[in-house]
């Protein structure tokens, strides 16, 4: 199956990757080859086959709703690239001009 650079650019945007134009052409080629190989699966008629989402037969796992020790706010935010008053700082997401 042929994959276009436009499609890969769309997928990169969905995946939040700012790939360069060199990477784009490389990725388009590499993914095209992998998808060609994956076409192999179309040899099989799977209309009547149920999917395996998971190998275990377990259902929703329940636990007691009890309070147990957990991370302190300091420990939980210690790896943050930008932290203020135990909160993660991010670029603003609301634009004042849009009201």
């Amino acid at each position, binding site marked *: 199956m042929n*994959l276009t650079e436009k*499609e*890969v650019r*769309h*997928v*990169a945007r*969905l*995946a*939040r*990757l*700012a*790939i*360069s134009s060199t*990477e784009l052409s*490389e*990725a388009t080629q*590499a*993914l095209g*080859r*992998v*998808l060609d*190989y*994956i076409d*192999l*699966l*179309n*040899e*099989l008629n*799977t209309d009547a*086959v*149920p*999917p*395996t*989402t*998971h*190998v*275990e037969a*377990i259902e929703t*796992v329940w*636990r007691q709703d009890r309070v147990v020790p957990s*991370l302190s706010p300091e*420990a*939980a*935010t*210690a*790896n*943050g*690239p*930008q932290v203020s008053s135990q909160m*993660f700082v*991010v*670029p*603003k*997401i609301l634009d004042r001009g849009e009201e």
Partner: protein
Amino acid sequence: MGMIDWDAVQTAEHVQRGEVSAVECIEEALLRIESTNPTVNAFLHVDGEGALAKARFMDHNLTREAKANLPLAGVAVAIKDNMVTTDMPTTAGSKILEGFRSPYNATVVELLERAGAIVVGKTNMDEFAMGSSTEHSAYGVTRNPWDPNRVPGGSSGGSAAAVAARMVPLALGSDTGGSIRLPASYCGVFGIKPTYGRVSRYGLIAYASSLDQIGPLARSVRDLARTLHLIGRHDEKDATSLDVDTIPESPIPTALQSLRIGLPEEYFGEGIDIRVRTLIEKTLDQLRESGADLVPISLPHTRYAIATYYLIAPAEASSNLSRYDGVRYGLRVAGDDLIHMYQKTRQEGFGSEVKRRILLGTHALSAGYYDAYYLKAQKVRTLIRQDFDNAFAQVDLIVTPTVADLPFKLGERDLDPLQMYLTDIFTVTTNLAGIPGLSQPVGLVDGLPVGLQWMGPPLSEDRVLSAASALEAILPPPEWPLSGGIQE
């Protein structure tokens, strides 16, 4: 035989009896790491001071009786760098996690430490466990201790190389499509991927959650058994962890005469290096001579396994890796706005193979393609599982080569991702089916190791380990690399 040759069980026994101290065991490992790691690059991080402090504590504060209750007393272990540790950084081989320090330990780390093991360091790996050669690490390649111009296999290449080069007797790896067994085979050590759910994944950095499983690499079958006995426990912190009996601490002696072993024709066809085939067939003859009943079987959907895997694993990965967004941990690269910050962070933080798999997985899950790709792969996964169900109705265990060839040269498969992906063709099926698989070294050809793979039904690790132990007993003791570019 010196300390360097001891397996984990032997090491622990000596410490328990007070014949050597834990400090001596750790010093031995650190010396060996110092002399061999500059060539092999198995370790990303070594915490010698921390490990020695723990060993000193054990020597000074624990009574003989207390040590006798520690099944891995004083054993130096290496942990693949995708299992989180509070005492050392965890990077998963990625630049995006450079400097990350986990606020908690993976369950497997807790269980090993509770058993007296001492973690000396974290091992190199393909970034986020995506690879078959340990060349896709942001921190340099790991080299095969048998021949430093060749890859150790991957993605747990650092763990396998550390055990083969006798830097440590024991290491943990993780296996999503063969990432324990392939490097075990290429480095000539033992490695087992347990049944999905046997070992808690709490604290394992997720690659493909429905396939990932942690397991040990070691230089004897009994070490695999003892370690899996200790780490194969139910864990409330992992909802997929199975609440089943743990396996016995030692392999239960089994007569090979009692075993019916299947040889799947699809794993013995074309494409196998003739030298690998010859040695595997010689080993099969030895099994036959010892009375095992070897019967031909068929796993007809084997040829679809790689295609199935390369839809399911990247799809799950694309979702799992969305957490690396520069907000809560790891790298952040400033951008004009939030989305731009995400894009630049991920662009700079991820390596090319990781990006490739994120793109592939995102494509397979995107609108209009889900049914054609992801759902289709899940259906074929059912057929692959059914192959094994049918096979295990006829046989107790299955034996195959672990990998079709010998360790390849560094850079040899770099340019063609698809060829790299096909390296996993004999190992990936057990992940899709969720069953245990063990790679056992069966000898050398042209100075390079060959591995044989055992596969068993779900939760049959005790049977797999017993059979491997019986084979271990009739084979000459495995060799370890002495020179091969790495001098003592």
